[in-house]
């Protein structure tokens, strides 16, 4: 047991990179698919739960009754921050590479909260529960760009800088009222 205690041996340890790959394509189905299609069009949709509340992002099954849900509902792309935290040192691949807030956002017309990043130009003092934020969308893909260039199998944000049907079609949220 005592052999497991103590400091690492540092430079003597053999290390090698290990890249985990998932070489499959998946279809997103009628519910998540509707959400992603909406994202590509610059529209956020939720789904009506068994108790009538609007769930965003939409779920395929009711979280309480497990009923299959089908009624897609459009909600706003702005809303109210219900809680937030402040990230001084973003981790690799997080939406922003400078200090930002994570927030749970109750979009207009929704009854549940969406989690996303909020950009305040690195100013924590701007953040407050109850503040209004709006989505900062990527631009739509121009008509002359070949949408099938990747075989139509793009499983995520394709780094084109255009909306592709992905949660990061919203680059982040920002305080409402910020000039374009």
């Amino acid at each position, binding site marked *: *047991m005592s052999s*497991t205690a103590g400091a690492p041996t540092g430079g003597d340890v053999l290390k090698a990179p290990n890249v985990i790959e998932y070489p499959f394509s998946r279809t997103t189905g009628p519910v998540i698919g509707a959400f992603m299609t909406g994202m590509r069009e610059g529209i956020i949709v939720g789904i009506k739960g068994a108790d009538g509340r609007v769930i965003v992002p939409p779920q395929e099954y009711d*979280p309480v009754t497990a009923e299959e849900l089908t009624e897609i509902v459009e909600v706003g792309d702005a809303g109210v921050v219900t*809680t937030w935290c402040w990230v001084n040192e973003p*981790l690799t691949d*997080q939406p922003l590479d400078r200090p930002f807030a994570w927030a749970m956002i109750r979009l207009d017309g929704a009854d549940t909260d*969406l989690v996303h990043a909020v950009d305040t130009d690195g100013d924590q003092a701007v953040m407050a529960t109850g503040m209004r934020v709006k989505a900062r969308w990527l631009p739509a893909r121009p008509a002359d760009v070949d949408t099938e260039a990747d075989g139509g199998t793009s499983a995520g944000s394709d780094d084109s800088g255009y909306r592709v049907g*992905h949660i990061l079609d919203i680059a982040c949220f920002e305080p409402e009222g910020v000039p374009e």
Partner: protein
Amino acid sequence: MRDVAVVSFAQTHHAREVSDINEVEMLMPLMGEALAGSGIPKDRIDFVCSASSDYLAGQPFSFVMSLDAFGPWPPISESHVDMDGAWALYEAWVKMQMGKTDVALIYAYGKSSPGDIRRVLSRQMDPYTVGPLWLDPVSMAALQARVGLEAGTFTVEQMAEVVARNRRAGATNPYAQLGGEVDPAALLAEPEFVAPLRKHDCPPITDGAAVVVIAAGDAARELSDRPAWIRGIDHRIEAHALGLRDLTRSVSTEQAAARAGVADGPVDLAELHAPFSHQELIIGDALGLADGVDVNPSGGPLCANPIMTAGLIRIGEAATRISRGGGDRAVAHATSGPCLQQNLVCVLEGE
């Protein structure tokens, strides 16, 4: 129901980084301690159940190799969960209820040091709407903490008290990674890490492993002078998406506690798998623990948090205290998933 008891427990001296030995080498001394060290012949084990995560090892079916720590020859009956070891213990308990097994060994291990545990754990989220954000568990816990703070469910002073009490207890636990006297006021003077959380509100990053042996009926009485009987055990799960839950409560812990019978008698001590300080307050409320219950006499996950293992350690710590006469009735709790999504509650009693 068959009576089942915890009869043996062993754990590593938890550390930030154990890079000089592999998982099998971490586990082998524990197997010896939990079996030979407790007078339990290895051939009495008729079921082995393990818990680990391939995401930590970076390799599919990584747990298969860890069976070498037990030695699967002649062929053994075994199973594995990609969950905390508390759920492996639950599986073994269910198998005992089926009458097929009398003595089971459960082991769990987690080495977080080879990777970035915050990024690794972000992979447990919804792969469509959350995963691509790389939202990490510290940030999620911080979102939860602010909900509770602003709702008045708890205060930052209470959170600092939780940290100070656990660290004080950790100093008495030779296996803990952290421990010592800290002044709650001094903790609050430290800068925020992922606001509103400070670093000490978060669990340490830990490499560690644990082994528990459970036995049914007369086998338990034979193998332990004072078995810690599992009088109730239950686990419940809530929705995955944070936006669908009341983050100030742990409804699944309330449900599991009711089914495990926590309120059926006085509780002497509780070992709570609440990795973040405010979560201990939420879980304590959900379990309905009275004032005066000794919470986390081991120092809890704020003093050592080996992933996939810290929940099983709670059961082992609580059982060990009962077996040594340090209490008659204990509650052990384990959690899994983002912001206390899934919770297991186990009631242990001496005879």
